[in-house]
């Protein structure tokens, strides 16, 4: 019997998307490191026909270490590690008797780690750099937890995302700016549908590049070629074919030349089988790339 679990609200995708990276590999021996807290709390979700339905309030919190390190000028290693992940559901309480009908639950553990390699297809310093990135999604989190087996810190499957990034930096007057885009295919296992992913990102460096403001449009479209509750042989709780298009903004402020803090918010404005609520992140970073 397949060990298929719920993968409902694309926690990994949302949280990973905070670190899009762009087509710029790190220089050899340089790096970028970030410790961030990411969370989403939602009491409604997009259904399979794109409408919004309520659900018991759930929260997911990930404390994540993210790192990029340049092995060479064109090859960068990337790790995105949710070292602490918490998923909880609220109590369900009778409005008539005020009794708890279904007790809330919480599970704490680690999330699914991502390991990636980014290779600069173009020479360093190219006007329009292009990079190829392979990301391996490791099922290090817990896919089924809690008495009702409805909590999770991972999707329980191994996946491989191959993506191409391209972009360019330029000046808006005296202000530095950049735009980048990516597209990729995520091959998923254990009955989950494969995905087409895309993203657009634009950023400007303000206050002598001490403050970077970034906007992102991200999308995941399911190929809908995996199992559903109807076709799987498992009796486990199973959801598949999640997809969304989201927008997000992030502000990063350099406290010193290398150390800074960041704040971001992301929300899906359309989706299927995904949370209909914004996610947020705060973090501190160490930028050794300069």
């Amino acid at each position, binding site marked *: 019997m397949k060990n298929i679990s719920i993968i409902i609200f694309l926690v990994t995708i949302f949280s990973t998307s905070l670190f899009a990276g762009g087509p710029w590999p790190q220089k050899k021996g340089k790096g970028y490191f970030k410790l961030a807290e990411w969370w989403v709390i939602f009491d409604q979700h997009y259904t399979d026909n794109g409408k919004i339905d309520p659900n*018991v309030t759930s929260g997911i919190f990930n404390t994540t270490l993210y790192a990029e390190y340049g092995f060479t000028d064109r090859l960068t290693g990337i790790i995105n590690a949710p070292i602490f992940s918490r998923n909880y559901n*609220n109590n369900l309480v*009778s409005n008539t008797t005020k009794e708890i*009908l*279904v007790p809330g639950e919480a599970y704490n553990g680690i999330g699914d780690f991502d390991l990636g390699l980014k290779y600069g297809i173009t020479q360093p310093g190219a006007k329009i750099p292009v990079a190829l990135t392979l990301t391996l999604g490791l099922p290090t989190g817990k896919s089924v937890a809690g008495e009702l087996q409805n909590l999770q810190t991972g999707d329980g499957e191994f996946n491989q995302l191959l993506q191409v990034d391209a972009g360019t930096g330029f000046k808006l007057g005296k202000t530095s700016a950049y735009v980048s885009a990516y597209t990729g295919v995520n091959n998923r296992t254990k009955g989950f549908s494969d995905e087409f992913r895309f993203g657009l990102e634009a950023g400007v460096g303000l206050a002598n590049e001490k403050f970077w403001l970034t906007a992102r449009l991200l999308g995941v479209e399911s190929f809908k070629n995996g199992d*559903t509750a109807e*076709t799987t042989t498992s009796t486990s*709780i*199973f*959801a598949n074919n999640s997809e969304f298009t989201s927008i997000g903004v992030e502000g990063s402020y350099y406290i010193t030349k290398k150390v800074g803090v960041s704040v971001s918010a992301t929300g899906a404005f359309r989706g299927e089988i995904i949370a209909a609520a914004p996610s947020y992140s705060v973090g501190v970073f160490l930028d050794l790339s300069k």
Partner: protein
Amino acid sequence: MKNLNLPFLILLLGAMLFNGCIKDDFIDDQIDPVLRFTSSLDTIEIDTEFQLEAMFLNNVGQEESPTLTWNSLDAEILSVDGTGLLRANSVGTTTISVSYETEEGILLSDQMDITVGATTIISIEEKSGTIRTTSSYTLEGTFTVQEIDGNLIIEVGEAWKASSNLPGLFIYLTNNPATTTDALEIGPVQVFNGAHRYEIPNVGINDWQYLLYFCKPFNIKVGDGEINN
């Protein structure tokens, strides 16, 4: 690295504040109290006894066992005592009723016509209903319910259609269509198109009032179907 201390502290404090807050979600689960017979009896053999059963459900559909008032319209044909024990005295047909006045002063009652004859005949009932979605997920169909040899048989018709993208769709029997509390879980839905059947042992046809379709992982109702006479 001194500059890292404050942001780290803020981050840790934020994580601690956010990581631990299971709160309450309230659902409106109030329904009208109900009193109904759970026994099915068409004819009782003369000079025998039969124990009638009735069920009182409070304003959240929970069964309670208050003292019920039993009455026979014609005690010369059928007499009934304070526990619902029938005594068949003479041939004929009369009406047996059960009633209860709630603490809020609501008078509830149910009644049925019973014949006294040569042999005891338990009436075989078939009930039916329509399944409807109460969400954005597809859920539609019709069903019939029968009690055979003490087991409840639910036959869902050919027109049944449900979304298979919904995580954890389960079916229940309940007396309160808003909640699975005190409901009987039949199991996960495994047929999403067309006719299928459930057989639930040791369940009477009058024990439950609704089919309930529930998304179990997210504790949210998806649809229901009232079991009608």
